[in-house]
């Protein structure tokens, strides 16, 4: 537990030294906040990708809390924390014979890598996961998943390029059940949420899972790149609409981006970030803990 926390803290260091550090310095400064102060805070939050509306909301809430006697630090701490989803952040793996985890997202966000990371984590926790290499579209998409499978010692169901991904998923579920796997992770091709045909395709894949298993996928996870700006909101909106997301995975948190889009994402769709990707290595996967996330910004 300690190690996970340490790693997590370390990864956030960049965030802390960057814009949020300056932000904290400001709100910890002496005297009562004036308008310049709020303007500066606004800019700092904007630069962290919180987005215009959310920033306005945070500042409004913080003003109220300040009026009711909180310190600037408390006020902003609460204003930000209050935006995050109250839902649980553990992967839903219990209470299912063979949970299916479906990973979706736009192109290049880190789906395939994350599938490998999560599969390894499950394996290390004593489960017997199977991976379905559902990206039969992108050149070598399936090969990429297979290389990861070999690396982490997890079996991968793969088909030749161009194979119908829904059919592949169908077979993977059979294979999982017949061969005693107790978790199925499905990688999917990157799809732009603006392409109706591709969104229909992923809807179909989800329906096949439901039909085959008689139940919804245990997790339908939207993978979001932390460097994404306000478009992440559109992605979440459309994917959520099509698939009823159960969680988000924020990747590339090891980069210089602040990942502030999380605040808007969670407050708008009430879908919690369940995991964060902190690097390209297969162990660079951490739990997302909102308290620590926000606290780390203030400490």
């Amino acid at each position, binding site marked *: 537990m300690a190690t996970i926390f340490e790693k997590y803290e370390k990864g956030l260091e*960049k965030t802390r030294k960057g814009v949020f550090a300056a932000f904290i310095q400001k709100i910890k400064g002496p005297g009562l906040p004036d308008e310049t102060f709020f303007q500066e805070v606004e*800019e700092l939050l*904007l*630069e*962290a*990708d919180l*987005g*215009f*509306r959310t920033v306005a909301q945070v500042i409004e809430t913080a003003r109220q809390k300040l009026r009711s006697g909180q310190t600037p630090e408390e006020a902003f701490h609460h204003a930000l924390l209050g935006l995050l989803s109250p839902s649980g952040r553990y992967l839903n793996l219990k209470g299912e014979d063979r949970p299916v985890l479906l990973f979706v997202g*736009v*192109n*290049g*966000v*880190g789906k395939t890598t994350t599938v490998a990371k999560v599969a390894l984590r499950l394996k290390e926790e004593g489960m017997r996961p199977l991976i379905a290499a559902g990206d039969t*579209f*992108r*050149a*070598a*998409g399936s*090969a*990429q998943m*297979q*290389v*990861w499978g070999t*690396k982490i010692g997890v079996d991968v169901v793969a088909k030749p*390029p161009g194979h119908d991904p829904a059919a592949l998923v169908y077979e993977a579920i059979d294979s999982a059940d017949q061969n005693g796997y107790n978790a199925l992770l499905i990688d999917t091709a990157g799809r*732009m*949420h*603006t*392409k*109706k*045909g591709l969104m*229909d395709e992923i809807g179909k894949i989800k329906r096949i899972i439901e039909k085959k298993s008689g139940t919804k996928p245990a997790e339908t996870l939207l993978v979001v*790149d932390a*460097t*994404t*700006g*306000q*478009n*992440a909101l*559109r992605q979440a909106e459309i994917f959520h609409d099509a698939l009823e997301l159960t969680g988000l995975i924020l990747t*590339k948190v*090891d*980069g*210089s*981006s*602040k990942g502030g*889009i999380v605040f808007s994402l969670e407050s708008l769709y009430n879908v919690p970030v369940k995991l964060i990707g902190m690097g*390209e290595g297969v162990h660079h996967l951490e739990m997302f803990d909102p308290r620590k996330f926000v606290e780390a910004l203030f400490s």
Partner: protein
Amino acid sequence: MFDALSSKLDVAFKKLSRRGVLRPADVKNGLREIRIALLEADVHYKVVKDFIRRVEEKAVGEDVLKSLTPAQQIIKIVRDEMLDVLGAPAPVNSDTSPTVILLVGLQGAGKTTAAAKLAKKFKKEGLKPFLVAADLQRPAAVDQLEQLARDIDVGIYATKETKNVLNTVQKGIEAGRKNFAKIIIVDTAGRLQIDRSLMEELVLIKKKVSPRETLLVADAMAGQDAVNVAAGFHDQIGIDGVIFTKVDSDARGGALLSLRMVTGTPIKFVGVGEKSDDLEAFQPERMVSRILGMGDVLTLIEKAEEQFSDEEARDMEEKFLKAQFTLEDFMKQIKMIKKMGSLSSLVKMIPGMPRDMDVDESQLIRVESIIQSMTPRERRYPAIIKASRKKRIAAGSGRSVAEVNQLLRQYEVSKKMMKKMGKGGLKGNVPGLF
């Protein structure tokens, strides 16, 4: 991509135009809306500040106050300023033999796809391209580029024997030379601009092979941090231009303004889809027109022209005139459209079309599969397709008889339409399907 921004600006300007006379306070109000729109479009907040200041300086001048249509005047100022920020179009320099292009960028930005797209583009222009697979980091990245090279039929240097990137790049360029390639495109592994050792690797590569162009591949969906990324790459290795990818998303793409304003680096190409044809030259006027919601007929026409060779066009025109248009031609048309890139991206360029309209591309595939299940004779003389043939075609294509009927009806309608519009000519137009 800029749809939402342009509609926001629309709203802002409508508010302005409702007033008879424009006062400095009105300008301020209008600009407030523009500021919000730009921020929501992911333009870096400092860039927004600077941009708004520049527009305001001009807008509050006499021109606007004297103008009869203040909203139009401001649109023009905003437009001119944006054009100014985006700069003049800059082609990829291909004046050295061979010309080495090094693609760099963050993980997942779209470098590998962009490499193949560039290769295809140069191939079409008759400049022999060659690819070098130097992403030795991401699993199967080499396989990916190899497969793309095969798809577009372009030479490639790819090896899985080593992890030595510099060595691979050098050998790859050598192989390209031996291949008499004019353009050698080097794909590299994605990396964070804050990753010291990986950035040093690029610095070294650049020093050793002196590429003619080092292009930063950047994602149109990027947020505020795009500025730091671009500055990071530019400061450490020096970039000559940007390829802006995933413009087929509905991201407003404000990063584009930021990249230019902060780094002064020209944007050379935009990626508009997953296919190897989905690459467009960056054209600031068109981008700004898009930002301001003016549609982009020119791009559409240009694309259509590129796909229809003159001969094919003449041939088809003749057929249209004589109404000899067969299902075979129908299928040819579909193939051309598919080559032209995604339908939705084409439709979006047509002014007056709803920006968020979705085109059902699966319908194209359906039509194609039905025609493919016909015999050549049936394709040429669709009139002979009666019940039993319909059943066979339906079974062969995995579609229903109703769908076959629908296609035949559609075909009849297009044929009639073509007869009517015969004299209108074909170039730049795709009759029958739109």
